């Protein structure tokens, strides 16, 4: 028995020592470029491409998955506590101004990066710059947004599935009201134009992305865009042009594969993240199409990448970003995932915007998104109050959906009161 105990102790000690040696060995190995990301695997293909074309790159890429909702919090906590931080930072457009305000993003226009802002599309630097005006991030894609539609339902209820004819049919927002009411009546209430008021609100909100939520005095100034949106939402609700689904809910995703709605305000990434995973049958049949919505194409979403100011692998991280987001070669890899580079040079080659996707049949969807829609996108603005304003807007939209008696005026008053409660020290106009 004693001998067994001795052997067991020896084996346990040995395994402990070996595991420690393994860890020590790993620590002494290749350099690591750490990326905190909520989009796991987004860089898989690009990574392979990078290492295939950079045989001298002696480092490893490591992804740490962080939920997008918690990302900013984790950055704040990690930085404030002196804990681990990523080398590559991500910034979502909804809260990136708050992230930039942390002062942890390196100025990419300075040494050793020397990024030249004239190489990217003109509207991009304004949304990738910090409060001092330095470019601190590189946008991963243009994110052109348009109106996706289901061809079979469009044929049945709108009489055509031709994108040009549909574009002509919906020239103004009032057209959605007129046609939407007819669709609702014709289908006995089973089909609506849009899945929910949240879709309509988001589209209208993004079309006004050039109006900053914060004015020059540091006050929140949103009444100019909130009021008309709420007034339209009331009309949209009363005309039954939208269903009652909450945007981003499980049902809302599943709804892409159902026959309840015709129009789906979508961004370029909606194709790979919402349409194709949720409507495989429709996509296999090429049942989707896209046209420019009333009010014009717009930008929706957006993620930029930057470098942590205290990173020890800045050169490696920058080399990677430069290749995948600022090179023609990398742009081809990103295109495969419906991410369209903001690098001007890539668009010199007409072949870059050519191509179809099975889900959109024979429509030249890439050309449509990158040439037709992208040219209509208004410049965007960001502010540290963006997430607070959008939170109140989401809540009011859900309320307008739920309460059919809630008027636009009452909703506006609720909105202003709610927003003011969250920031009592700031003037809300």
């Amino acid at each position, binding site marked *: 028995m004693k001998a067994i105990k001795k052997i067991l102790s020896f084996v346990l000690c040995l395994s402990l020592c070996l595991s420690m040696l393994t860890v020590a060995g790993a620590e002494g190995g290749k350099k690591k470029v750490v990326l905190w990301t909520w989009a796991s695997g987004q860089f898989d293909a690009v990574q392979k491409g990078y290492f295939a074309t950079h045989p001298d790159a002696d480092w490893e890429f490591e992804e740490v998955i962080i939920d997008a909702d918690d990302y900013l919090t984790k950055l*704040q906590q990690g930085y404030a506590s002196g804990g681990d931080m990523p080398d590559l930072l991500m910034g979502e457009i909804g809260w990136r101004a708050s992230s930039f305000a942390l002062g942890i993003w390196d100025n990419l226009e300075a040494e050793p990066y020397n990024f030249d802002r004239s190489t990217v599309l003109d509207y991009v630097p304004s949304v990738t710059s910090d409060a001092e005006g330095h470019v601190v991030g590189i946008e991963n894609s243009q994110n052109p947004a348009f109106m996706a539609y289901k061809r079979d339902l469009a044929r049945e209820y709108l009489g055509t599935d031709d994108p040009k004819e549909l574009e002509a049919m919906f020239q103004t927002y009032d057209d959605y009201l007129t046609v939407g009411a007819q669709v609702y009546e014709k289908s006995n209430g089973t089909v609506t134009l849009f899945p929910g008021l949240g879709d309509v609100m988001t589209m209208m909100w993004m079309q006004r992305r050039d109006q900053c939520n914060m004015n020059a005095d540091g006050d929140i100034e949103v009444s100019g865009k909130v009021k008309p949106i709420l007034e339209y939402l009331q009309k949209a609700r009363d005309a039954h042009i939208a269903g*009652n689904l909450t945007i981003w*809910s499980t049902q809302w995703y599943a709804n892409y594969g159902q026959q309840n709605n015709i129009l789906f305000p979508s961004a370029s990434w909606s194709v790979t993240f919402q349409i194709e995973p949720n409507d495989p049958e429709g996509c296999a049949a090429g049942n989707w199409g896209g046209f420019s919505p009333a009010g014009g194409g717009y930008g929706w979403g957006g993620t930029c990448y930057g470098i942590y100011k205290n990173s020890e692998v800045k050169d490696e991280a920058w080399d990677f970003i430069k290749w995948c987001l600022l090179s023609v070669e990398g742009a081809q890899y990103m295109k495969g995932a419906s991410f369209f580079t903001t690098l001007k040079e890539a668009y010199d080659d007409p072949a870059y915007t050519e191509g179809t996707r099975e889900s959109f049949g024979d429509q030249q969807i890439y050309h449509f998104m990158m040439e037709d829609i992208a040219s209509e996108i208004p410049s965007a603005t960001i502010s540290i109050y963006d997430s*607070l304003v959008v939170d109140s807007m989401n809540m009011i939209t*859900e*309320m307008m959906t739920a309460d059919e008696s809630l008027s636009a005026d009452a909703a506006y008053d609720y909105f202003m009161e709610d927003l003011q409660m969250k920031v009592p020290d700031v003037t809300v106009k």
Partner: protein
Amino acid sequence: MAKWPWIFLSPFILSYLCFMLYPTVYSLFVSFTGWTAANILEKPYVGFKNYIRIFTADPLFWKAVGNTAKLMLMAMPLTIIAGLLMAVLMQNIRKGKQMIQTINFLPYVITPIAIGLLFAFMFDWNVGLVNTALVKIGLTDKNINWLGTPQHAPTVVALMIVWKNFGYFMVLYMAGLSTIPSDLYEAAKVDGANAAQSFFKITLPMLRPITVFVVINGVIGGLQLFDEAQQVFMGAGSNAVGGPMRSCLTVIWYFYDTSFKNNSRYGYGAAIAFSLFIIIAAVSLINVRVLNRKEDRL
């Protein structure tokens, strides 16, 4: 002085100092600063400014306090009654007692995320089981938007709290019931008391210490309500903090949102946390005083 007790106690003492006392004292210090994410490396001292604002000029804080109290008042009595009734019923069950006990206790150990999703699906506006059942039995002809209106959403959250906690209260009451001498019931029976009289005259008074414990702990837990409320709305896909019209925004949810989510004001968030501590301490003190006074009178 003997050193061995200190050596054996040192792991606990060190852990307590590092992971309990230090964070608490540090949070108290932070609550007197204007530390924000926008100026993360500086913690300017602002004295009682945060506290003054919370108690005099922060309607959202008081809305959150009101919501928390409302949810607690809706859920607590039901949870206590359900727990007590189940415990009494358990006493009379012979077959399958352990299985029923386990089933009733399970919700208490299920993770709040799962509970949130479960209730979100059950109370879904379009395809929820509850609406389907209500329409089928004819109680309503139109689906009710349980999670989307400020009138109904608190009810769902309160039901969730009841469902989650009554099993735990049942176990506590069962422990209390096992300490009541059976000869009391036998004597009552001899005197001609029926079951209801025995319950109200013997069981309930004898369970008073358990009820005091359950009420005080329930109130403290209720004031700290957060994840259940948050998860049910997240499960329903809503992005709105605090549910429809902030009707389910609890104090801890408000603290979390202020400190780490939309506002990132650490100093103010810490002040909210300590304000809640003051409220919990005051409510607990009142609870103990009132319940003990009643006990003295008996």
